[in-house]
């Protein structure tokens, strides 16, 4: 016949609500109910989703963004709230959607930044606005440790760093990460492993973080 079939499309089963988050975030509660309520317009449902995903989003964007990650996060949430009522899927799909939007916003922001260079000045607005509700000492230690870890991840090759963040921090499954970054699941798995191994084996890094 002159041609030979290599493969046909196949999609993995979907729709199973994950009950164990691959990441180690403390909150691991089923959010399907919150998602349903948010879709119906319930603010408390949306707030639950935001509290679960926003910290992850900020950490991901710190590594992914070249500009102001908080602006990109705000744009992401604006996009999400605008289209949430028409979202179809479970909380796993929602999580993947949020990070896909964030990734595209980050790409747009990088392009806009390259096209219109801006001058930075010190941010005086943040002076005196630090939250004080959490124990100051433990929070400072935690923040330093996490921020240091994010900087270390950023040293990895860009694609590898992004895959590590999507897999570890965002808590997305390997096939979902593969879909977002346009790689095969195998490539994602290998890249994330190598990235984490690089981070864990470097004695300097270990001493810096601990």
């Amino acid at each position, binding site marked *: 016949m002159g041609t030979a079939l290599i*493969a046909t499309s196949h999609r993995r089963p979907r*729709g199973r609500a994950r009950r164990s988050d691959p990441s180690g975030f403390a909150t691991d509660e089923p959010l399907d109910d919150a998602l349903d309520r948010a879709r119906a317009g319930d603010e408390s449902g949306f707030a639950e989703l935001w509290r679960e995903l926003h910290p992850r989003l900020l950490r991901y964007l710190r590594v992914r963004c070249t500009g102001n990650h908080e602006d990109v996060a705000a744009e992401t949430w604006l996009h999400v709230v605008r289209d949430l009522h028409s979202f179809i899927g*479970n909380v796993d799909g929602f999580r993947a959607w949020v990070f896909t939007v964030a990734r*595209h916003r980050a790409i747009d922001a990088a392009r806009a930044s390259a096209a219109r260079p801006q001058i*930075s000045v010190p*941010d005086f607005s943040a002076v005196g606005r630090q939250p004080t509700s959490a124990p100051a000492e433990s929070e400072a230690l935690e923040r330093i440790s996490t921020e240091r870890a994010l900087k270390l991840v950023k040293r990895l090759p860009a694609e590898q760093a992004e895959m590590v963040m999507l897999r570890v921090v965002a808590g997305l499954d390997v096939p979902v990460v593969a879909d977002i970054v346009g790689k095969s699941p195998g490539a994602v798995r290998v890249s994330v492993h190598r990235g984490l191994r690089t981070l864990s084996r470097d004695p300097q890094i270990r001493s810096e973080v601990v």
Partner: protein
Amino acid sequence: MRRRDDDLSPFRDDPVFEALTAPATETELVGEAEAVAAFREAMPARVKRRSAARIATTTTAAAVTLAVSGGAAAAYTAHLPESWQAKLHADLPALDIPAPHHHHHSSGGVVAKPVVTPHPTVATTPTPAATGAGSPSPHASPSLAPTSPLASPSATPSLSVVVPPPSSTPTTSPTSTSVSPPASGAQLAMHVSPGARVTVGTQLTVDGTLTAPDGTAVASRRVVLLERVVGRRGWNRVGAPLQTSAAGQVTFSVPALQQNVRLVLHSRHVRSAVQKVVVIPVIRVDVAPTSAGDTSTTVTVSVAGGEPGDVVVLREAGTRTGQRASLSGSATATFTVAVSQREVIHYRAFVPRTKEHASHSLPFYVPPSGSG
């Protein structure tokens, strides 16, 4: 065999892993009120009304008024953080929210930055991206037999949606028999299986359940299923109307889907929520056999569910660039790709989403020259 996603377990005790996944700090949770305010403003009026009605059952009307208007008041008086104020001003012009005062930037130290609302080159839709395309099978070979394009209709979850009927607004639903219409507050629930994302050619089953305000089933009511497809005006009936059973149920069959469709069930004075069903195209890749010494070969991509003119992108694994081609009248696109003398080269064929179908991609590889 599908591998479990437990590949992170060796790293969980690592300091870097622990730091990355540490609980959220208070600093990271700053901005919740602004996000909720944006959520409040962005929800469609229909959903807002529904939400407000539910809240009103447990709170006073005054409290509802205050809750619903609070974020708007903050936005109108420009008391939201600057980044949110700017984005609400730019993205929700209908609300007439004022622009922020550009005294300073909220956190990044950017002066008088004009509000831009860039759009991604790859559109982001509220479609869960959690469906990874299959990876190249390790045993895939040029002689692999094709699988049925309808092999995975059950791969998507079923959905149930319910919308209360509009309050006392007459509908244009067909007039019914002498059976008295259900009182205001009846619900018509729709359940679409196998789900809201299906492979092209999948037949749908739509189950409807009509219940009275007290939750009891409404029997002998006429229900119609309406569909709306791209390129055709208005809603069109699917099949013949059905009467609800003693359990208040009806079941419709939708013929094999070839493109995205919106479905809604209608009965007198009540309708279900509109359910969009997205069709996933089926991609087939054929690689022409090569002889020893060949440096290129022809790859033919055929897309079941694709329309002539739809774009197909062929990208080598690990690269950002690729070839683009449009589907011909026979829904195929042809590419010329390089062939290695010794190595397998991995590619991915990608079909972007259109109004007719969802996006989809298919990894495949080109064997070394002369291997088949």
